[in-house]
């Protein structure tokens, strides 16, 4: 009789899915029972969750260690200002369109930077982001070096009152954070996720078993650019103002994000989550220390890169075997084995 097998995806997923839904509903109601300062912070955390998950997908799975993702935040931001300001598109509709613009630009950029490997790739992506910033600063129609603000009409198109506007901004940020989380989770549970996880662990071996690593990485790069661009559009819609310096800020849109992913645990969904909370806690704690805050963050990051490469979540999951977002597949035997030739060999008495 032939042995039969099936794949088990883990029941924890359903339990956790329900818990996530309840948490999402609770978060959505936040503006109704906390003050606007807390809501604003929660909104910021939500879009940083999106940025962290996206960078993790790129660097932690596809092996594309980009330090130029601020290019897509900035391009998305500027695209939104053009769409709303010059083309009269509704601001909320302009958010996904800003993502589309970033994705369209990411394709030719990918064809250049994908020729580079490792550290060269990192430098290449950073150079591309710098070029984007310099080019935009040269364009008077976009406000040149000093940037531009959204017109009062555009701001009113979002909502007439300031309180309502803030609530809409928060809900958009929350939706972006949760949508990206769901996308990354869904992607990693799919077949593409299987390929991405294999690429994370060994690129040559994944090629040798038939994975088209170039296509998988390109797809990831473009999808991440789309989402990063949309988040960029959303961020600068809230700020109501954009300039080349703020739009393409290396520190705000890439360094901070890398910090979260690296200390939380790169190459896992849980890691960036944990890193997000640690970063915001540290930021609140060290708010009064000025530039010391950055120095301490830098030291923490260096410590993790040298001594705890799997981050805090790596340590937790190795120690407790915990997985909050189950992406694994378990093989379950339905009928007994026929024969196990090398099993006998493993047992010297056999």
């Amino acid at each position, binding site marked *: 009789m032939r042995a039969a097998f099936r794949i088990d995806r883990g029941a924890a997923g359903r339990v956790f899915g329900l818990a996530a839904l309840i948490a999402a509903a609770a978060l959505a109601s936040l503006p109704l029972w906390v003050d606007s300062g807390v809501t604003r912070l929660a909104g910021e955390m939500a879009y940083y969750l999106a940025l962290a998950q996206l960078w993790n997908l790129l660097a932690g799975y596809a092996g594309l260690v980009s330090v130029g993702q601020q290019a897509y935040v900035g391009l998305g931001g500027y695209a939104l200002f053009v769409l709303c300001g010059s083309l009269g598109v509704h601001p909320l509709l302009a958010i996904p369109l800003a993502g589309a613009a970033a994705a369209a630009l990411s394709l030719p950029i990918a064809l250049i930077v994908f020729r580079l490997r490792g550290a060269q790739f990192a430098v290449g992506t950073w150079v591309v982001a710098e070029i984007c910033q310099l080019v935009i600063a040269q364009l008077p129609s976009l406000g040149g070096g000093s940037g531009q603000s959204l017109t009062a009409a555009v701001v009113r198109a979002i909502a007439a009152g300031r309180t309502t506007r803030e609530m809409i901004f928060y809900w958009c940020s929350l939706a972006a954070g949760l949508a990206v989380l769901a996308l990354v989770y869904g992607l990693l549970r799919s077949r593409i996720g299987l390929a991405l*996880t294999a690429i994370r*662990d060994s690129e*040559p071996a994944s*090629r040798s*078993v038939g994975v*088209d690593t170039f296509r998988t990485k390109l797809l990831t790069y473009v999808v991440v650019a789309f989402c990063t661009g949309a988040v960029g559009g959303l961020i600068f819609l809230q700020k109501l103002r954009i300039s080349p310096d703020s739009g393409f800020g290396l520190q705000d849109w890439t360094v901070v994000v890398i910090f979260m992913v690296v200390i939380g645990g790169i190459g896992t969904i849980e890691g960036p989550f944990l890193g997000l909370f640690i970063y915001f806690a540290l930021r609140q704690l060290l708010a009064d220390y000025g530039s010391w805050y950055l120095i301490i963050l830098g030291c923490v990051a260096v410590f993790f890169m040298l001594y705890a490469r799997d981050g805090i979540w790596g340590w937790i999951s190795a120690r407790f075997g915990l997985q909050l977002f189950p992406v694994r597949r378990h*093989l379950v035997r339905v009928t007994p084995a026929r024969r196990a030739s*090398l099993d006998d*060999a493993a047992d010297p008495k056999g």
Partner: protein
Amino acid sequence: MTGPLLELVEVSKRYGALTVADRLSLAVGDGEALGVIGPNGAGKSTMFNLITGDVRADAGAIRFAGGDVTALAPHLRCRRGIGRSYQIPHPFAKMTVFENLLVAAIYGARRGERESAARCGEVLDLTGLAAKANIPAGTLTLLERKRLELARALATEPRLLLLDEIGGGLTEHETRALVETIRAIRAAGTAIVWIEHIVHALLSVVDRLVVINFGRKLAEGEPQAVMAEPRVREVYMGIPTQ
């Protein structure tokens, strides 16, 4: 099919001043088992890398199953039916042993997920890794990792299987079991090229033997006859052939 399954025609590869493949020509028939021996650094693993596309040839042509694959990307060569193990294992360390095989079955053999589960389960039974199916591959011992290399290559359902020193470090008993496994794979119709230093194990499986030295083919033919050749004995001084 006419002609051999795999054919290398005057394939060359240099690393700087070092020639690791020197106008190497070789043919492997469908369903044939070919043994490869040669001193360390002779260019055996490089030959595999050239066949799989991990390394591109400087000159020469590689044909597989009637098509020219010289310029083909590694993943496409795998899909055409070239499966390989790495001498230094490259497990997907944080994926489970089963998931290692599943990637191969889905992307290499182009199977659906459910169908793949059955295939992978069978391969795990054959290679004795069934008990380890759901643990991370990174926790395996070196010997188990070598078996995983074999298992993962098999999960791509290759027409040609390239095995690079998967028998090193085994006990006499384990070696016999490995030989049995490889015979079973062969009996199912898969052609095999096996690089191995354990000559007696190799000779108990292969139809033909090739000796490589300095990137060149030193000798080729019926295994016992090749081992008896003086120039082979010179390279392999002191290694018993029985």
